[in-house]
């Protein structure tokens, strides 16, 4: 009998030790505790897997009853089945590698212990999310990882942008969580329980409308956590956090929670065709949309961030067309190669002394051959080159999409081409050509500098600002004595070793782990699609075209990108600025709420609206809020008047309602 609770408990213990005593412990001890707790947890997962036939014989363990009142009976229950098994392996496995990597990457940071405490806490919540046997436990993990993500994004708290990004992540996620909590309540009302077992077995018998509503609300939750349209905006900003965080939380684990939830609730989704269609379309739209933005970014982490958003879109596409196992497969392979991409990017950034702008890199293969090698593996995988892990899972999704609706396949293929293009663009820009970071020249990109001089300037400025802090933190005690303007250098082995492991997985993970076959008992294999070989050929071709085109544009013919930018003009500006979605949200949601409340409730009416209206200066927006605005003028008589007005409203309502006044 395996004790499942130990799996999340170990990282939690790590969190407690590092969180409370970390300040007094040496860095070696802190990292030993942090890494060990996760590695041990991984060991436990493996032993659970061995003893349960890798989820063949599901385990369900009840620890204690959490709530029991008036028909509610929610326990602290953990369960392991095949789906959980995959998630557990990914979370603890990749989590261990990233922890090891982080010991190297964060070696010179202030607040080392704090970082690992948060990271362990994250592992605790993530494992809760995965292991929980009911929606409430899932929700606990769900909220918890959101919180940790907030803490970790804002880790460089001296940077204002980091704080803002953390806030943004938290708030956008809250909107998603709102959807999820509604879904949870609806499930509870409909099924009278929150246990996966009870709910999912009863789902086929419930009315379609209710199931559709539940599924759509869950999707809202998932769009928040898994960065789908329209709530994806937080993820690119979340790159303000340290790179291991980006790799662990914003690539491999947390962001896939939405995919996990939808797959877990497959029984509900399968009975709600409208919701399924919505999932597929949201996924596909996100995939394309994010890929186009990815084409234009210069910040290496931003490129990978948009790529993550795009790949998550693929997973949702898979789920939406009913190929749950393909979605999960892609979740796993994506965890391999995207974690690798981020960690590789981290290694590059490390090498360049904190620089993240690809225009200031180049030629790094000379200085960092290992990083270059592993990143090539990851880039091959994400481009879907035959034989790599990404090829198998992406192909499975696209084939299923074709079976569902051919147009989805074609859009997906184009996106795959774009993905290959921008990832390899990043690769060429970083590793090929000449190193551009050493000299004082600030622009190698003449076309760009001329057409978009303003944007570019602002961008560059931001980066130099960010860099100051990063630099100050990460390189003050650098062993090699390099500074920013020196030559790039390879990362230490504690960082490279995990990369090599992941590189192997990125290449071989596809045929080592045939997820759809593994999950066949849970999610029946998709029916055969005609011309499967042809479809496969098309998607391979799209990937290769993307790679070739990027080579052509960024290695062979370097003048071309500038010309294309010029030719595209306004469209390029639009895409480069991420379609101005942030600005749109800012103008339509954030500002009205903040300023609206300021305007409406902050200034008293006595000073503001009435006087203004009397002087004819009252603007339209102000007079709307006029009534509310008077609420807090500080005047006792005004307050009393409100009480009387309230009383009158109540009396009239009750009079009409109670039959007194007819």
């Amino acid at each position, binding site marked *: 009998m395996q004790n499942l609770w130990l799996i999340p408990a170990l990282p939690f213990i790590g969190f407690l030790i590092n969180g409370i005593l970390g300040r007094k412990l040496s860095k070696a001890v802190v990292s030993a505790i942090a890494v060990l707790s996760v590695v041990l947890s991984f060991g436990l997962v493996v032993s659970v897997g061995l003893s349960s036939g890798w989820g063949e014989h599901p385990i369900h363990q009840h620890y204690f009853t959490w709530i029991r009142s008036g028909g509610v009976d929610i326990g602290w229950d953990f369960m392991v089945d095949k789906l959980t098994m995959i998630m557990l392996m990914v979370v603890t496995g990749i989590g261990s590698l990233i922890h090891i990597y982080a010991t190297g990457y964060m070696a010179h940071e202030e607040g080392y212990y704090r970082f690992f405490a948060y990271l362990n806490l994250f592992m605790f919540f993530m494992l809760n999310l995965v292991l929980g046997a009911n929606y409430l436990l899932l929700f606990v993990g769900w909220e918890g990882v959101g919180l940790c993500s907030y803490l970790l994004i804002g880790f460089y708290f001296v940077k204002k942008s980091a704080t803002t990004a953390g806030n943004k992540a938290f708030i956008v996620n809250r909107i998603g969580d709102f959807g999820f909590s509604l879904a949870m309540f609806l499930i509870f009302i409909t099924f009278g329980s929150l246990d996966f077992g009870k709910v999912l077995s009863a789902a086929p018998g419930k009315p379609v409308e209710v199931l559709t509503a539940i599924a759509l609300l869950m999707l809202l939750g998932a769009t928040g956590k898994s960065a789908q349209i329209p709530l994806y905006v937080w993820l690119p900003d979340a790159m303000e956090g340290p790179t291991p965080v980006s790799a662990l939380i914003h690539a491999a684990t947390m962001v896939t929670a939405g995919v996990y939830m939808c797959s877990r609730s497959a029984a509900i989704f399968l009975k709600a065709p409208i919701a399924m269609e919505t999932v597929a379309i949201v996924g596909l739209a996100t995939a394309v949309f994010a890929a186009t933005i990815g084409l234009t970014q210069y910040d290496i982490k931003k490129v990978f961030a948009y790529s993550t958003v795009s790949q998550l879109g693929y997973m949702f596409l898979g789920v939406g067309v009913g190929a749950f196992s393909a979605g999960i497969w892609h979740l796993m392979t994506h965890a391999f190669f995207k974690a690798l991409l981020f960690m590789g990017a981290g290694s590059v950034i490390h090498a360049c002394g904190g620089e993240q702008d690809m225009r200031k890199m180049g030629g790094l293969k000379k200085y960092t051959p290992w990083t270059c090698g592993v990143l090539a593996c990851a880039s091959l995988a994400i481009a879907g080159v035959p034989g790599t892990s990404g090829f198998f899972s992406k192909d499975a999704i696209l084939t299923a999409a074709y079976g569902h609706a051919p147009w989805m396949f074609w859009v997906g293929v184009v996106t795959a081409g774009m993905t290959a293009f921008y990832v390899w663009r990043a690769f060429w820009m970083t590793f090929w050509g000449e190193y551009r970071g050493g000299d004082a020249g600030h622009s190698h990109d003449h076309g760009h500098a001329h057409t978009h001089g303003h944007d570019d300037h602002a961008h560059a400025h931001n980066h130099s600002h960010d860099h100051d802090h990063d630099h100050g933190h990460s390189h003050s005690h650098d062993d090699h004595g390099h500074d920013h303007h020196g030559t790039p250098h390879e990362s230490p082995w504690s960082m490279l070793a995990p990369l090599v492991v992941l590189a192997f997985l990125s290449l071989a993970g596809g045929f080592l782990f045939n997820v759809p076959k593994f999950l066949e008992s849970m999610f029946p294999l998709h029916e055969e699609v005609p011309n499967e070989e042809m479809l496969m050929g098309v998607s391979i071709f799209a990937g290769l075209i993307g790679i070739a085109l990027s080579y052509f544009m960024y290695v062979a013919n370097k003048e071309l990108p500038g010309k294309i930018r010029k030719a595209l003009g306004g469209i390029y500006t639009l895409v480069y600025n991420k379609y101005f979605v942030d600005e749109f949200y800012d103008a339509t949601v954030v500002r009205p709420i903040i300023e609206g409340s300021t305007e409406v409730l902050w200034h008293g*009416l*006595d000073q503001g609206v*009435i006087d203004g209206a009397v002087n004819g200066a009252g603007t339209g927006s102000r007079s709307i809020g006029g009534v509310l605005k*008077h609420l807090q*003028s500080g*005047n006792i*008589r*005004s307050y*009393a*008047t*409100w009480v*009387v*007005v309230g*009383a*009158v409203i109540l*009396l*009239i309502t009750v*009079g009409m309602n109670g039959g*007194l*006044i007819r």
Partner: protein
Amino acid sequence: MDLFFFLLFAFIAVACAVSVVLQKHPISCALSLVGTMASLAVLYLLLGAEFIAMVQVIVYAGAIMVLFVFVIMLLNAGEESSKGRSWIAKIAGLPALAALLGILGYAMLTFYPMVGPKASLVHFGDFTGGGAKEIGTALFTEYLLPFEVTSILILIAILGAIVLARKEID
């Protein structure tokens, strides 16, 4: 006779109450309020509440209002200034008051039938259960608890007055 007394004292009560609201000087207000209270005492008597009528005069009109007058004198409060304003009171105040009066007045007027065999009428002498004996009996049997508990209330009042109004010793 009932009608005459009711109308007379109801009129005085309302007139004095209006005067409380309209008078500018707090002393005049206080005196008007005493007028209202006194006429209410008469109405209580008509309603058969002898004891309460007495208490109304002795405690309310007497003690409490004297306290008010004392404070007005102590603070040397003059006519109220018309500085400051509350727009909402000006704009929403009167309609809200009219609505309040309308609803409460309507509800109260229709509360009991006024005419017919089931009419509820007040005739002096109909009810004599409000004498000191009945009140005393009720207070010391059924309502013993609230009676005793009001001592806490008074203790708090004394304590509060001491805390807030005493002079600094140092």
